[in-house]
C-alpha cells in the first residue's frame, strides 16, 4: 500500500473525510499513474521532430520571374540556439523589447523565453501543420 492511499484511509478512519470522498480520492490516485504511463508510451512512439520545414509556393515572383518555390529546412537545434541567443540581449534592450511588444498587444517577457519552453512547443508542433492558402501564394509549415 502506498503512502497516499494509507493517508486517505487514515483520514477516513479519523472521520476527516466521508467514505464517498475517500473512494473518489483513491480513484483519482489510480487514474494518475495510468495517464502518466499513457503519455510516456505516446511520446516514446512518436520520434521527436528534427527539422522544421517551411515551403512557400508563389504563383508570381516579386520581379516577375514566374512561379517561385522556396523550401527551407531548419534544424530544431538551430531554433534552440536561437532561443539561447536571447540570453545575449542586454537587460535594458530586453525591457525595450518587452515594452514594444506590449504596445503591439503582445504581453510577453523575452527574458522568460527558455530552451525548455521551446521543447514544449516542438512537442506540440509534432502534430501540427500550418497551411496558409492565399491567392498568390501557399505557405506550409510542418515538422519532420
Amino acid at each position: 500500500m502506498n503512502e497516499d492511499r494509507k493517508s486517505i484511509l487514515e483520514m477516513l478512519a479519523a472521520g476527516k473525510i466521508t467514505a464517498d470522498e475517500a473512494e473518489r480520492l483513491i480513484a483519482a490516485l489510480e487514474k494518475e499513474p495510468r495517464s502518466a504511463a499513457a503519455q510516456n508510451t505516446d511520446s516514446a512512439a512518436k520520434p521527436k521532430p528534427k527539422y522544421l520545414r517551411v515551403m512557400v509556393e508563389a504563383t508570381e515572383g516579386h520581379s516577375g520571374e514566374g512561379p517561385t518555390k522556396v523550401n527551407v529546412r531548419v534544424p530544431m537545434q538551430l531554433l534552440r540556439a536561437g532561443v539561447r541567443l536571447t540570453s545575449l540581449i542586454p537587460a535594458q534592450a530586453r525591457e525595450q523589447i518587452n515594452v514594444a511588444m506590449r504596445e503591439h498587444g503582445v504581453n510577453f517577457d523575452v527574458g522568460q523565453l527558455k530552451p525548455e519552453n521551446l521543447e514544449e512547443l516542438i512537442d506540440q508542433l509534432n502534430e501540427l501543420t500550418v497551411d496558409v492558402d492565399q491567392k498568390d501564394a501557399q505557405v506550409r509549415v510542418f515538422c519532420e
Partner: protein
Amino acid sequence: MIPCLAVLRVRNRRGRGFHLWIPLVLVWILLLPVAVLILPLFLLYCLIGRVRIARAINACQSLFRGLKGMQIEVENRVCSVSLRIA
C-alpha cells in the same frame, strides 16, 4: 559538432549548372583571425550589457552547431539554387 561542408547547387532552366562543395573547415580556419579580432569587442559587449560570458559563448557555439542539416532551396522559372549544410 560544427558543420564541415556546404553544398551549393545552381541550375538554370536548361538544366545546366554547377555543384560547389565548400569545405567549411577551411572557412572556419580562415575566419579564426577575424574571431580573434572580434573577441575584445565581444567581451566588451558582455561587460557593458551585463551578459554572462560563458552563456554567450555557449549560445554562439550552439548556433554554429545548429547550422548542420540546414537546407535552403529556391526555384523559379529562370534558375534553381540550393544550399545544404552538412
